[in-house]
């Protein structure tokens, strides 16, 4: 691609080539297959020119030049393999090896280390390095994920630059100077970035290594499978590296349009739960209230019988899909509709209502050149970390404005503007905005309306990001975007999914009123809330929940618990015992994404294939296999294939119309329940509004059981405004009980100015302290601090 840039002709090692003006020599050489070694240079970061390994000879220049910061010029003649270059490189390698420990045989990087490789290719032959090595700290515990060997470090600063230029977190630093320089953090504080694992990949040597991978394998012993992370809805591409059928590590597999070459630590490290005792390795059937090991056939037979009987009475329901593959989500709705004859199917096991924007669908890459990013509801650093890196870059390096509308100040590593709006006020705000923008009276809006409206009116390209929870706000946003689009503002919307494949499930037809490909059915079954309500009232006899954990994630926790207790038969398909599976009569042991193949659809609607990396344990089946077996047992074996490829070809056909529709035609929307108001804090003595907040490492499934994530996992906590805390005698760090109409949870108290007075932020999706005991269907709740716990914990700490 020339991007309209002028082309420059030059010669590298005798080959003449033409590249766009501004191209760096390293990249120009790469384009014709000439390899120039680099350490500090990284294509995603600014050239730093530190390591000096990339020296090349340029005719008419007296000194060797660095290829990583030299731009091509017309007529330039470059030599990358002359004797002068060889000498220069040898020199640099010699300097680097001077104090480098000779521990390659026990180094995790051995086999993929650039120092090792370049030394073999370009390095000093007969070594004159008899110099005794200088010593620096080894095995420095940098934080929960990373170990640092300062002796191996060649101070290329890729890690610190990553932490600065890419994550903008600026916590990894160089301290001291000269050859005393060390990589570190302030005061030795743990390096806790959500992106820490990437530094182990970009570190060209074995200085930064993953605790999870230390001494586990050698690169040449690994098998690779191209996969996609499903821990959140971004869908980063990664590779699963395994050895003897066991996953050893995951590794980036750059897709510039999605992940730009990075993955977050949640994605990178969530796989060891598969090898924990808590992993479900065979189906379970409840006998006298206790789950006991059973065979797959027994579990299928029992489930088929119960579902079949309930279906005949039109008293069956199916929940799930957001954590299945596209093929399996498709199969799940086949089970509901074509096997059981019911439209009671819904992937929505949390407060999320929509996973796809009906119009103005944006791509992740649209963030890159957005001039205004408007976020409400979603907390991207926690829920879509790799997408958040794009946001950070747009703001920090391309001067996009970041507006966050919502009840609390979210974590931000780049300048942002927080516009405080209480839960439930967002929809009216969007309407007001649409109104003033429509009439071109931006400056006349009241309060923050004017500010936001003017920002919108001035923006050249607007990306709105939300969490699809508030149907009215989403509707109003749509109207607002219509107005803006009229004035030729490119606009786009991204909906952050609550589950990794929420959008895939929606597109596969796991909603009561839409079939695969968003095809309107003209009829509707029950939503999750209605199924649960019906179950709680004894109007549904059998529920099948596949890859969903509503007991923890559904906002009206009291309702879920009543429903799951009451329903006559509950079958759950899961990888680990979850809060939901604990209620089940039958639990299927399901395969993980690493153990199967298929497709997933990320938040921007990109359908991506992933490939099986390892075999599941013998008695573990994929959800497709489970669903096919159920169809078979229910007498309709032709409806559901166990083969992803077969399912995919069926699904793909049905999805094609939606994909090829004109962008002006809105996608049909999943049906939603009537809105439930946010509880009034005054309705509860000493009440505070409960606002659940997401956390990257929260969750009751894999995350709760993965030993790799354990050190990063937060304890349940609640954050009070300092004033509220003081009034209630709550001190930072004490344990308190929060009591609401639906139940109580115990959390650690924190205080923070970013909490609106009268509210309390409570960590969501923590099995130890489920916030849905306090919230209602609106997603918000009310609670007070149990005074007894305050005094008790104060005595404890005293």
């Amino acid at each position: 691609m020339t991007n309209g840039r002028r082309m420059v002709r030059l010669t590298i090692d005798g080959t003449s080539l033409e590249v766009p003006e501004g191209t760096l020599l390293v990249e120009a050489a790469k384009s014709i297959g000439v390899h120039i070694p680099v350490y500090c240079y990284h294509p995603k970061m600014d050239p730093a020119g530190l390591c000096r390994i990339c020296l090349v000879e340029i005719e008419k220049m007296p000194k060797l030049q660095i290829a990583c910061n030299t731009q091509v010029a017309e007529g330039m003649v470059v030599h990358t393999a002359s004797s002068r270059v060889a000498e220069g490189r040898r020199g640099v390698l010699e300097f680097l090896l001077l104090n480098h420990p000779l521990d390659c045989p026990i180094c995790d990087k051995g086999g993929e280390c650039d120092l090792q490789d370049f030394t073999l290719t370009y390095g000093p032959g007969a070594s004159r390095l008899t110099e005794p090595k200088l010593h620096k700290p080894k095995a420095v515990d940098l934080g929960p994920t990373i170990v640092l060997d300062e002796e191996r470090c060649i101070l290329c600063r890729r890690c610190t630059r990553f932490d600065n230029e890419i994550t903008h977190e600026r916590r990894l630093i160089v301290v001291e100077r000269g050859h005393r320089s060390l990589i570190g953090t302030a005061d030795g504080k743990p390096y806790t970035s959500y992106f820490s694992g990437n530094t182990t990949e970009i570190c060209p040597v074995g200085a930064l290594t993953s605790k999870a991978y230390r001494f586990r394998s050698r690169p040449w012993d690994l098998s690779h499978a191209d996969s996609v992370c499903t821990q959140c809805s971004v869908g980063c591409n990664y590779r699963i590296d395994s050895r003897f059928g066991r996953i050893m590590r995951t590794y980036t597999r750059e897709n510039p349009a999605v992940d730009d070459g990075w993955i977050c630590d949640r994605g990178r490290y969530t796989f060891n739960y598969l090898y924990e005792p808590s992993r479900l390795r065979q189906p379970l059937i409840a006998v006298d209230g206790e789950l006991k090991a059973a065979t797959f056939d027994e579990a299928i037979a029992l489930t088929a019988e119960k579902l079949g009987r309930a279906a005949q009475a039109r008293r069956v329901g199916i929940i799930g899909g957001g954590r299945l593959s596209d093929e399996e989500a498709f199969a799940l709705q086949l089970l509901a509709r074509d096997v059981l004859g019911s439209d009671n199917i819904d992937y929505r096991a949390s407060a999320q209502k929509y996973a796809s924007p009906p119009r103005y669908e944006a791509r992740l890459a649209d963030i890159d050149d957005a001039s205004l990013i408007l976020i409400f509801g979603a907390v991207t650093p926690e829920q879509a970390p790799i997408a958040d890196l794009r946001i950070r870059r747009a703001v920090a390096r391309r001067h996009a404005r970041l507006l966050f509308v919502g009840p609390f100040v979210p974590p931000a590593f780049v300048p942002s503007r927080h516009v405080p709006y209480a839960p439930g006020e967002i929809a009216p705000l969007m309407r007001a905005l649409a109104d003033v923008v429509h009439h071109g009276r931006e400056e006349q809006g009241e309060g923050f309306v004017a500010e936001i409206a003017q920002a919108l009116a001035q923006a050249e390209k607007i990306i709105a990001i939300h969490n699809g929870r508030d149907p009215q706000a989403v509707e109003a946003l749509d109207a607002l975007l219509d107005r803006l689009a009229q004035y030729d503002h490119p606009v786009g919307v991204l909906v952050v999914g609550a589950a990794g494949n929420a959008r895939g499930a929606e597109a596969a037809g796991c909603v009561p009123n839409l079939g695969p490909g968003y095809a309107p059915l003209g009829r509707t079954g029950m939503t999750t809330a209605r199924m649960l309500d019906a179950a709680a009232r004894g109007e549904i006899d059998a529920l099948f929940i596949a890859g969903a954990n509503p007991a923890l994630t559904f906002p009206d926790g009291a309702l879920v618990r009543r429903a799951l207790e009451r329903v006559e038969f509950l079958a759950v398909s899961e990888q680990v015992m979850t809060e939901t599976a604990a209620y089940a009569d039958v639990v299927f042991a399901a395969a993980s994404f690493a153990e199967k193949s298929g497709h997933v659809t990320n938040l921007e609607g990109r359908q991506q294939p992933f490939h099986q990396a390892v075999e599941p344990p013998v008695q573990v089946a994929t959800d497709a296999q489970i669903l096919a077996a159920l169809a078979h047992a229910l007498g309709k074996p032709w409806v559901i294939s166990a083969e992803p490829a077969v399912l995919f070809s069926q699904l793909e056909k049905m999805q094609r119309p939606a994909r090829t529709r004109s962008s002006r035609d809105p996608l049909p929307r999943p049906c939603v329940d009537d809105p439930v108001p946010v509880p009034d804090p005054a309705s509860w003595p000493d009440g505070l509004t409960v606002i659940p907040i997401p956390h990257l490492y929260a969750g009751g499934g894999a995350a709760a059981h993965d030993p790799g994530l354990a050190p990063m996992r937060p304890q349940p906590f609640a954050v009070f405004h300092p004033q509220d805390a003081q009034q209630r005698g709550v001190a930072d760090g004490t344990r308190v009980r929060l009591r609401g109409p639906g139940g109580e949870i115990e959390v650690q108290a924190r205080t923070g100015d970013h909490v609106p007075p009268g509210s309390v932020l409570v960590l969501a999706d923590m099995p130890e302290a489920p916030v849905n005991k306090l919230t209602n269907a609106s997603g918000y709740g009310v609670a007070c601090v149990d005074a007894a716990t305050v005094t008790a914990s104060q005595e404890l700490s005293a």
Partner: protein
Amino acid sequence: MSPERRRKAEELAARYPRRQSALIPFLQYCQEQDGFVTRQAIRDGAEMCGLTEAEVESIASFYTLLFRQSVGKHLIQVCRTLSCMLRGAGELQEHIRRRLGVRNGETTPDGLFTYEEVECLAACDRAPCLQHNLMFHYNVTPDEFDRLLETWRASRPAVSLPAE
């Protein structure tokens, strides 16, 4: 940040087009008050400039006149570079080390004297030279040093690292 520090931070920041330029002067000011750059000073500096603590730590650790540990009431910095070497800096250094019973970079057990060998102080024509609390002393012979030492002992200097 204490109100006084905040006032100083604002005063320093006002001198420059960008706040971060005032970071080093600010740390010098904190150092003058506390005897070295304390963790609190790092935190205050970060707050003042919108930096992370880590960044301030990285910056502070670059400069040899910003001390991360407390120094003696008398900071004695003796030049060790060529011109001074040619005119007896080696002998002077040996004398001081013996006299104070410390090595390069150490502080006497009573916390009074910190001894450091430093690079060319741009006073090579009056070699060997040293700085005592950043004040120059020229043509310092071992005898002259002993005389100086007596006057320092007798005095009670307020600051070993003046900021302004």
